[in-house]
């Protein structure tokens, strides 16, 4: 095609050929063919019982992964070599961009992030292929077949509407820039984590579809599905937590959750995945809730698809994005309709075969888990409604509207209180059923004590008593009952230290995740109710008092970064004796260095907040703009217990990791279960 043209600024060690992007396209095309072959043969083989066909499931999975790694390497190389004849590279990178951000720019926009999606999916496929040796062959082939089919849909979407290797000639001498917001370490980890989570939901989905195809689902199935669902849930949790943290320090204004469509798109699958993890517990322990579990698995994946597609196609901010690129929009709707429609049709045909064996008593552990599920699903529905409502109104020409954070906050606070109520006591109630009187006894002291402790904590801050009392009471309720759950376990043990060490890892994981939820509630309550902020104009040497601290603007000096220039302010913060809400601490004075940057390539301005992080409070200062002579506008903030929100997320993720690594998931499937499933795998 074109001769090897010298590329601006590409390192000499890189073995980069001008045809490398074409290799990438070819690898994607080959992966698509392989995915279609794998899906067809393994699903047809499972339906007809041809073992030779079934056996292609694993090799085609490995093959797809290898081809996507090649495509990924090709795109990364194009970024490193600054090959601006590749449109995607030209739009998202330039020669000044540091190498690490050129590598992370691969997933900085639409095309590359879809490639990451597909790569992550094949990664999960390889993991399933390697770890499914103990599963009945027919079942494993069905799971991998369904995943191949999903991957085929994605690869077709990439190749036909969003090929990252698309060329444009003549190549510009210099690229645009990666959005400066994305030039941050947070971006290196946040999207891949989130995508691993989104895509991980496809494993649970594939297990559910495989069970429906086989018409058989039992406790063994739940035991196979649960660690995969937990793994996806852990990735989602970490991705969302990282995203919140990134927004907090990188967007420059100290917000940690905005209820904007992109966040909601990741939050909905998380809510459903959380419900699914708990529903699977009932299916595993009580051989019950089967249809509900399968439906959740389908919904979780559908919301992952919806989230990715809507966000990445720009549909959410405006239906006009459809007009901007109709092919993408139509493709999106097609894939969604096909995946969800086909799954639901299959569900409606096969679900009657899934008969629950256990009886159901409302006052039992499964009863509380059902309550948890209902609350989580309603929460997800509320987020979906708030996210799609403006879209629907606009589409029907009923005016342009937006649904603001007040809606989400108003709906979420009571729902999370209900969730905390069920979550605290649920693990202490017996499976199968318990007397209402006994459950009442469990609450006799803990309920008033939690409310008392919550009230005391709320009085400590002295403002917004109702909201803070509710939040802290819920947190203490969960923490207290989690501790009592451990005591229940140890009650009949001869030696409590031995019993502590012998607690199942999965049980410890559950406790840790529940503690994480409580920690998160404390953080959210404290920050949203006690957090204070002020926008103010300060001349050099002037100060303002806020939340028990005095902020003094000392200087604003010019700075030079690698690919930006700007100013750095110096704000002295000293604790003062009186005033303000929330807990005060006696930290010695410290200095914040907020920055205002202008990136050379795009000319985009960026606010970098100066942040002093602490266990009990964060202090922030952000620079606005110069005003008058030597004065600046500033926003200063005091945010009590800000870190607890993310600590909570980390605890939940850690709990999930422990739960997924429980011994019982690694044990070989009991022979009886395996045979039952193998028998049921072929429809009668």
């Amino acid at each position, binding site marked *: 095609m074109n001769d090897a043209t010298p590329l601006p600024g590409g390192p000499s060690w890189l073995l980069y050929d001008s045809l490398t992007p074409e290799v990438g396209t070819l690898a994607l095309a080959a992966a698509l063919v392989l995915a279609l072959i794998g899906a067809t043969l393994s699903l047809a083989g499972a339906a007809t019982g041809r073992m030779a066909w079934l056996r292609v499931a694993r090799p085609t999975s490995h093959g797809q992964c290898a081809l996507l790694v090649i495509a990924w390497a090709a795109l990364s190389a194009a970024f490193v070599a600054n090959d601006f004849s590749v449109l995607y590279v030209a739009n998202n990178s330039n020669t000044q961009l540091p190498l690490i951000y050129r590598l992370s720019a691969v997933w900085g926009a639409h095309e590359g992030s879809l490639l990451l999606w597909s790569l992550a999916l094949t990664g999960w496929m390889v993991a399933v292929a390697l770890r499914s040796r103990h599963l009945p062959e027919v079942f494993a082939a069905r799971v991998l077949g369904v995943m191949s089919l999903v991957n085929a849909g994605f690869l077709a979407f990439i190749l036909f509407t969003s090929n990252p290797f698309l060329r444009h000639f003549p190549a510009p001498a210099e690229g645009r820039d990666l959005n400066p917001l994305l030039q941050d370490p947070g971006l290196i980890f946040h999207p891949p984590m989130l995508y691993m989570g989104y895509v991980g939901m496809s494993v649970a989905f594939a297990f559910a579809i495989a069970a429906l195809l086989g018409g058989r689902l039992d406790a063994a199935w739940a035991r196979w599905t649960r660690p995969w669902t937990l793994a996806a849930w852990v990735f989602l949790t970490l991705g969302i937590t990282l995203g919140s943290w990134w927004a907090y320090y990188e967007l*420059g204004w100290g917000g940690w959750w905005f209820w*904007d469509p992109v*966040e909601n798109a990741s939050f909905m699958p998380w809510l459903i995945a959380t419900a699914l993890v708990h529903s699977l517990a009932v299916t595993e322990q009580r051989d019950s809730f089967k249809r509900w579990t399968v439906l959740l698995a389908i919904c979780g994946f559908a919301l992952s698809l919806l989230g990715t597609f809507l966000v990445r196609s720009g549909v959410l901010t405006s239906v006009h994005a459809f007009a*901007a690129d109709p092919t993408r929009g139509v493709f999106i709707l097609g894939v969604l309709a096909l995946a969800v429609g086909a799954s639901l049709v299959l569900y409606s045909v096969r679900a009657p075969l899934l008969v629950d064996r256990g009886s159901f008593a409302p006052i039992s552990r499964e009863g509380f888990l059902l309550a948890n599920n209902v609350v989580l699903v309603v929460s997800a529905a509320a987020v979906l409604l708030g996210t799609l409502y403006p879209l629907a109104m606009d589409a029907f020409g009923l005016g*342009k509207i937006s649904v603001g954070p007040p809606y989400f906050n108003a709906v979420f606070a009571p729902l999370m209180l209900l969730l905390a109520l069920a979550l605290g006591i649920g693990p202490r109630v017996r499976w199968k059923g318990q007397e209402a009187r006994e459950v009442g006894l469990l609450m006799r002291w803990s309920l008033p004590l939690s409310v008392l402790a919550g009230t005391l904590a709320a009085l400590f801050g002295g403002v917004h008593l109702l909201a803070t009392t509710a939040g802290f009471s819920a947190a203490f309720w969960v923490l207290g009952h989690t501790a009592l759950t451990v005591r229940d376990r140890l009650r009949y043990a001869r030696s409590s230290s031995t019993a502590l060490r012998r607690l199942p890892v999965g049980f410890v994981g559950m406790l840790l995740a529940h503690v994480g939820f409580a920690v998160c509630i404390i953080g959210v309550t404290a920050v949203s109710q006690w957090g204070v902020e002020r926008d103010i104009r300060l001349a050099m040497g002037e100060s303002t008092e806020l939340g028990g601290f005095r902020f003094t603007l000392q200087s604003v000096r010019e700075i030079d970064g690698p690919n930006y220039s700007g100013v750095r302010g110096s704000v002295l913060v000293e604790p003062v004796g009186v005033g303000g809400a929330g807990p005060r601490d006696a930290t010695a004075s410290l200095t914040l260095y907020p920055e205002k940057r202008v990136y050379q390539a795009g000319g985009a301005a960026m606010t970098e907040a100066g942040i002093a992080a602490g266990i009990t409070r964060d202090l922030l200062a*952000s620079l606005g703009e110069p005003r008058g002579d030597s004065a600046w506008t500033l926003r200063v903030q005091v945010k009590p217990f800000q870190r607890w929100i993310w600590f909570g997320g980390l605890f939940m993720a850690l709990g999930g990791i422990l739960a997924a690594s429980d011994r019982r998931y690694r044990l070989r499937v009991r022979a009886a279960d395996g045979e039952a499933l193998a028998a049921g795998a072929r429809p009668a």
Partner: protein
Amino acid sequence: MTPRQRRFLGAFAVLAGVATAAAVLLSAVSENLLFFYTPSQVAAGEVPADRTVRVGGLVVSGSIERNPDSLAVRFQVTDMARVVPVSYEGILPDLFREGQGIIAQGRIDANGVFQATEVLAKHDENYMPPEVAATLAMKGEGPLAPVHPDARPADARPTGAQP
């Protein structure tokens, strides 16, 4: 109760629960809707006086007046047909500048000045809020769509959003 009756009762309970939840959610949504208006609509008096709304358009060149002694800012937004004066007290987003497409949230006062409590602009110099783009497209002015169809909508965040 026969199993049949129990099934009916169960289905009824589920239906009642779903209906209640839907009603509560829908009423919560409708209480928190923010309607978007163009400067032409504002000038025509279509905006209810006591309701928080959003107005979007381009910042008129030369209209920005910053008070040197406080945070107060006055500027005008236009949809190329009519102009609305906006008054705001606070920190403006990084990309607020003349000719930039912005969205202001607030109320219209008795003098026809839009008292903004929040001003939004996108962290991308080529971005235009979709509502603004649509408004301008109807007037036959300016770019028809965001230059980047894939521009992350995540970044169109208010500077002062607090959950």
